[in-house]
């Protein structure tokens, strides 16, 4: 026990309305070295109708705390080793499983991050809701159906009767999360725990789901525990905030106080690392220069086969008639929501998917010729979203970084080893890291390995496909700094692909906004963020949660309809948009 804990503030006194009291909660995992604490001496109260946000980075113990409240800690290794959790008059810690089951879903409900995994893919939505309701209340199927319909209406799904007959895969991500919420509120729980409820969703959908959660909590007087890493979401949603780090509470305060006058250094650091949206920067590059990469009317389409003869019945128009240039030394960002085709552009550029139309690299057209591809791969490297997935787990970090040198036959074994060590030093990893395997590193360190690997061939363009999206904010900030430094040093260009408007605003010189496989707006950072012209761009920018509790919330857009789809019948290609120059190279799609 350290001194810091001994002087941690006592939990606020339990008031009239208190529904949940967590007192000195300790959670430990059993390892070969004995019990290892994961959460230590955590205390807080929750009142009826209150929204408490538990904020922290990965590994801070915030999800474990919520699982402990639900009695869902993964047995037998992880368990509560001290303290108590009191719900209403009941002590949850040490309660037998069958009694917990009665409470779970009924009085304490939980919403998980990934809606697709929380729903049974082979059951209709209606059947799942009815089952959940009937598990707790002894009512007839038809009564339960009525309740299910009410719940689906309450989460503002369009065509509720039809939704009940659909399967989860027929719904979009946002609609699925609404179904999960409907399931959670169908029994009118006293406490709703939402564990990163919007992390897997697009920003415009996130906005809708947050609005919905806020309204539901207010209307039903449900206490909401919101677990999130996103300080923007915290600022918009919470009444009180509890900041956690390494299993300990760092600070607990009302939301305004926390954001305006954070007391603890860690809270200050966390808040400082949150990328804030400004009005952009960047200038148009000198068009006299030869562009590094130029896309002209590039298309990528996948055929969907069907019928007994396996004919092409539909086509996915992932990228449709896209044209833009990337100049040496600039950071060009592609933004848009999932499925808009931004990653497909990167994959077409690196030759992972075939394209039609034109892509030129330094004036040379890119074909599907393997030898030419290999030559170009020296100058064009990619950093992927999930570094754990992008690194071969059976090779050491050193081998992984040497790999591109080996493939291209550069240097001798000794010189390659030196080069790898130098690259590691450059991205801020020690030399001892060379002999370790990817799983022995943290997420941020792994992404540094990926960056070192991409740098090994001294490319002129690095494609960063959601490269910082999976990282904690403080780590994200340091990786972004590293990318910026490297760019200055080596004068590389970046094709930066992201769904995160705030990150793009901070890093990009020029930005292209994509929607359904096409670019709807293209301009410098200041043109896009300072003067957005296309309604979709505006919607994207407005939807971003700001880490500022005093900021007025944007107007509601209720839009839980079927989203438009890039899947179209053969012979019915989408119309390619026409762009107007609204001044100084700022291109906007004509509506």
């Amino acid at each position, binding site marked *: 026990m350290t001194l810091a804990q001994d002087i941690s503030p006592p939990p606020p006194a339990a008031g009239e309305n208190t529904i949940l009291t967590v007192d000195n909660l300790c959670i430990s995992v059993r390892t070969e070295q004995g019990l290892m604490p994961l959460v230590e001496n955590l205390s807080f109260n929750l009142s009826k109708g209150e929204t408490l946000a538990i904020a922290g980075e990965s590994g801070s113990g915030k999800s474990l705390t919520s699982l402990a409240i639900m009695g869902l800690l*993964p047995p037998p290794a992880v368990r509560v080793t001290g303290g108590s959790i009191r719900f209403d008059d009941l002590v949850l810690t040490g309660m037998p499983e069958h009694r917990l089951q009665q409470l779970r879903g009924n009085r304490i409900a939980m919403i998980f991050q990934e809606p697709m995994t929380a729903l049974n893919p082979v059951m209709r939505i209606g059947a799942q809701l009815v089952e959940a309701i009937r598990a707790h209340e002894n009512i007839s199927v038809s009564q339960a159906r009525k309740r299910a319909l009410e719940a689906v209406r309450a989460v503002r799904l369009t065509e509720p009767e039809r939704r009940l007959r659909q399967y989860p895969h027929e719904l979009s991500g946002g609609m699925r999360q609404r179904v999960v919420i409907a399931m959670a509120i169908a029994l009118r729980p006293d406490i709703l725990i939402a564990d990163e409820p919007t992390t897997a969703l697009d920003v415009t959908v996130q906005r809708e789901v947050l609005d919905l959660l806020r309204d539901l909590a207010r209307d039903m007087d449900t206490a909401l525990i919101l677990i999130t890493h996103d300080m923007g979401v915290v600022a918009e949603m919470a009444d009180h905030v509890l900041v956690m780090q390494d299993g300990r509470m760092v600070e607990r305060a009302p939301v305004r106080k926390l954001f305006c006058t954070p007391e603890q250094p860690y809270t200050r650091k966390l808040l400082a690392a949150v990328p804030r949206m400004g009005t952009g920067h960047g200038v148009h590059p000198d068009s006299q220069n030869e562009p590094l990469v130029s896309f002209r009317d590039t298309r990528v389409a996948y055929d969907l086969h069907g019928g007994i003869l396996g004919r092409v019945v539909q086509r996915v128009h992932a990228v449709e008639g896209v044209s833009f240039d990337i100049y040496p030394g600039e950071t060009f960002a592609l933004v848009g929501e999932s499925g808009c085709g931004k990653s497909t552009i990167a994959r077409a550029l690196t*030759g992972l998917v075939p394209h039609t139309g034109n892509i030129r690299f330094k004036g040379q057209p890119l074909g599907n010729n*393997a030898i030419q591809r290999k*030559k170009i791969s020296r100058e064009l490297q990619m950093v992927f979203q999930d570094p754990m997935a992008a690194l071969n787990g059976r090779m050491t970090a050193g081998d992984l970084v040497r*790999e591109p040198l080996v493939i291209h036959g550069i240097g001798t074994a000794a010189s390659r080893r030196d080069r790898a060590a130098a690259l590691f030093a450059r991205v801020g990893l020690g030399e001892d890291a060379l002999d370790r395997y990817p799983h022995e590193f943290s997420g941020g360190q792994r992404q540094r390995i990926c960056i070192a690997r991409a740098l090994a061939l001294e490319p002129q363009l690095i494609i960063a496909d959601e490269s910082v999206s999976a990282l904690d904010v403080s780590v994200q900030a340091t990786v972004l700094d590293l990318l910026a430094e490297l760019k200055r040093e080596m004068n590389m260009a970046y094709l930066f692909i992201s769904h995160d408007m705030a990150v793009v605003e901070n890093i990009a010189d020029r930005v292209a906004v994509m929607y359904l496989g096409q670019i709807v707006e293209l301009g410098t950072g200041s043109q896009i963020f300072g003067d957005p012209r296309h309604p979709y761009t505006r919607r994207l920018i407005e939807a971003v949660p700001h880490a500022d509790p005093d900021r007025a919330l944007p107007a509601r857009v209720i839009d839980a309809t079927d989203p438009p789809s890039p899947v179209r019948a053969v012979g019915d290609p989408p119309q390619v948009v026409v762009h107007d120059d609204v001044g100084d190279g700022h291109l906007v799609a004509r509506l």
Partner: protein
Amino acid sequence: MTATKPATLRASAPSIWTRLRRRKLALIGLFLVALTFFGAIFAPWLTPYEPNTQMFEGLTMQGAPMPPSAQFPLGTDLLGRDLLTRILYGSRTSLIIGLVANGVALVIGTLVGITAGYFRGFIGSVLMRLTDLMMAFPALLLAICLAAIFQPSLWIVAMVIATVNWVQTARVIYAETSSLSQREFIAAERTLGAGHVRILFRHILPHLVPMIIVWGTLGISTTVLLEATLSYLGVGVQPPTPSWGNIIFENQTYFQAAPWLVFFPGFAIVSLALAFNLVGDALRDVLDPTQRGQEQ
């Protein structure tokens, strides 16, 4: 969610042998395998008898086989041959079949599976339809046909077993390879400019090693048994050459009168199969770098 921290690091990871040595079960398996090899190689020096010599003193006065005794540690069979000697010599057959036949099947299956799984398309379809075709034949019937066409000998039996046994491996490796090929690190490798051969053998194959080891060790027991079946049907190893399988089948009718004749070779088959499985399991864990530091 699970709040795992990156494992704390050692200066140098212990070698594969050091880590293997910490596993008791693996050591037992290794010991049994070594024992079998020892028996197979040094059989002539380990026993005073010849495997195929029928001995007068090996039968009782009534002409029945002798139970285990000081003179014949495992007893004798119907023809008065020493059972221990036959099991020792028979281990040669079983090891050759188990290792060679199974090894060849494993290599064919892996090559077919990995090629079909990685390239898919036309090559993949052709290879996998061929596999399905092989699967459609009853394995035993096919083996009998092949063995009947060729002059039965130990090596022919091994090849026949390999021919019918590669299909399951091919299927499993195919499925695993096609899912591995979709993984991001393969895409990353392609963006680095790596060729197909390098991706296949340097990046995909190492991930298949655990699966190959498990299938390989499981396959040893099935091949030993398949050889026994073939020998029994008269198309396998020809008597009087002993194999564990044909010892059992020669003597099964006398199971009630002379149980040791079935028990000892049966025990040999079971323990060899088990031993290979134990070693295989341990090797799979030890060869996987992500398991490091997580063992007892």
